[in-house]
């Protein structure tokens, strides 16, 4: 409707206005920026400065030499693992293990929190909460040792139980098809209590008045859960989910290392354990840095995509 000249004019004016508005908002929030200053400085010094060390992925590392490497090698180290077929096998293993862990492991703490929420007895609730997060404090070494004892074909409790029903003993730890279930189930067991704490906190934020309103509307407990509780903690769930997808390529190192056997290695080996074994041969920091960089980039891409999806479909997103 406005001619070309008029449009530019008004957009020029509005640009200036916008800039003024922006500046006004910054000034209004200036205290906030001031508060943010210390963490930002901390971040720069303690996180971004060491990040410069990643340049080692492109340069040759020499023992005792500069941390930035001594010679530019370009993509040599990236080529080393990109052309390594075994690396991609390990990459797929890592992805599958993480995704399965996510699918099965993510909902459990939420369910646990919801179930705990239904417990009326306050003391009972506290006791259960405290007990369920105990396993998190066991070190990985201890957990693996426990698994070995529990799953032993000859003396383990699980197999003795199965035998009673006439089922033959299964050598869980040595069977390819059982590695992932064992890993994931033990992870769930170990961390479900701890992970549910977050959701329990979120539950305290749900307005009891909403429950009362729903009850008055005739909703039973189940409907209340569906329409009040879950929407109430949905932001927390979504944020946690997004964050979890961002660590998909970084699945646990110590546990896999202790749990895999020669037999299960084909599917149990993950990026971190493979890189570890490769790194033993020579202190090949350039190689491990390159792999680390690669993992970081992929993780970032994944989390960005997931974040975008979340932004479009729900109101919650990281950014």
């Amino acid at each position, binding site marked *: 409707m406005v001619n070309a000249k008029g449009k530019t004019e008004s957009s020029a004016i509005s640009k200036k206005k916008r800039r003024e508005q922006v500046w006004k908002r910054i000034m209004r*929030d200036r205290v906030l920026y001031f508060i943010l200053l210390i963490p930002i400085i901390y971040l720069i010094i303690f996180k971004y400065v*060491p*990040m410069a060390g990643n340049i080692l992925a492109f340069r040759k590392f020499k023992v005792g030499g500069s941390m930035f490497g001594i010679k530019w090698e370009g993509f040599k180290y990236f080529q080393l693992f990109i052309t390594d077929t075994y690396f991609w096998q390990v990459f797929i293993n890592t992805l599958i293990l993480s995704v399965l862990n996510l699918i099965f492991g993510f909902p459990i703490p939420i369910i646990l929190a919801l179930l705990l929420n239904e417990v*009326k007895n306050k003391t009972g609730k506290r006791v259960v909460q405290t007990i369920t997060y105990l*396993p998190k404090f066991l070190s990985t070494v201890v957990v693996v040792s426990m698994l070995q004892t529990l799953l032993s074909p000859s003396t383990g409790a699980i197999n003795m139980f199965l035998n009673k029903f006439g089922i033959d003993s299964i050598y869980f730890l040595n069977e390819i098809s059982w590695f992932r279930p064992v890993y994931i189930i033990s992870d769930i067991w170990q961390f479900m209590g701890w992970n549910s704490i977050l959701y329990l906190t979120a539950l305290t934020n749900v307005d009891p008045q909403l429950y009362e309103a729903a009850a008055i509307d005739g909703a039973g407990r189940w409907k209340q859960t569906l329409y009040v509780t879950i929407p109430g903690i949905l*932001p927390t769930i979504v*944020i946690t989910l997004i964050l979890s997808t961002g660590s998909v390529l970084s699945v646990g190192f110590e546990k896999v290392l202790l749990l895999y056997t020669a037999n299960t290695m084909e599917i149990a080996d993950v990026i971190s354990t493979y890189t570890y074994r490769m790194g033993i041969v020579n202190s090949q920091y350039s190689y491990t840095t390159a792999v680390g960089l690669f993992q970081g980039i992929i993780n970032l891409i994944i989390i960005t995509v997931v974040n975008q999806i979340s932004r479009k479909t729900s109101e919650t997103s990281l*950014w």
Partner: protein
Amino acid sequence: MNGNKVRISTSYKFFQIINFIFLAIVCWICVYPFLNTLASSLSSNSYVLRGEVGIFPKGLNFEAYNRIIKDSDFYVGYKNTLVYTVAGTILSLFMTTATAYPLARKGLVGKKYIMLFFVFTMYFGGGMIPSFLLIKNLRLMNTIWAVTIPGCLSVYNMLIMRTFFSGIPESLTEAAKIDGIGDFSLLLRIILPLSKPILATMTLFYAVGYWNDWFSALIYMNDSKKHPVTLYLRGIVMGLTKQAMSGNISSTDAVDVAGKTVQGATVMLVTIPILCIYPFVQKYFVSGVMLGSVKE
């Protein structure tokens, strides 16, 4: 906690029974290893070796605990852990709040970029060597700061805290602003008192994090008198496993392995105190703290 005036249906009662049974089972599988470790630590070695100890000690004796109690390294380590945990947690609470609060403000200019700035660090780090060199060059080696500062801001925790702050109704902020209260006072006087649950959660998360952190001390503390007790524990429990994995066991090592009883005692002594934080923190998990402050 909720719906106390609602009529309880039969199916709900049934559900509660099932729930109870389910939770009891969950509790059992979570607590069993600890009962077993506790029992082992109080049993005589021979029963433990034979695998005859369940949840009750056999051949009750306190030898394992005596051994540890006589070891001065244990006390020194304990003191260090306490100091690092308390200092670290306070520092972390400060840092995390200082980050989460501004980033929770709607309409903050540049928020997206600042967020990215923080989130980016979750995926890219420098690794052990650059961090080590940094601490060295900052002359923080062998000080308490080396084990508290590097980890004092967990972006993950910060994001969670930010989500919580975002959930606080905007109307509250606006009402305060109308009253002429500045952002800083707003934070201290209004927001934080309402944020007890999340502060409690963060305290728990960070305290546990610092308590369990043995790696920082391994890398940055030259003086073994500054090592936390978790590193000491690791030496006792892990000592041989690591070496076995690389075939690096020498004759003197093998015979010196701490028996399971001593391992169990150390685990108990190191783990139980941190578990005790939760009950203190739990009382803040009370809902309805925020309500009634603003009429919607």
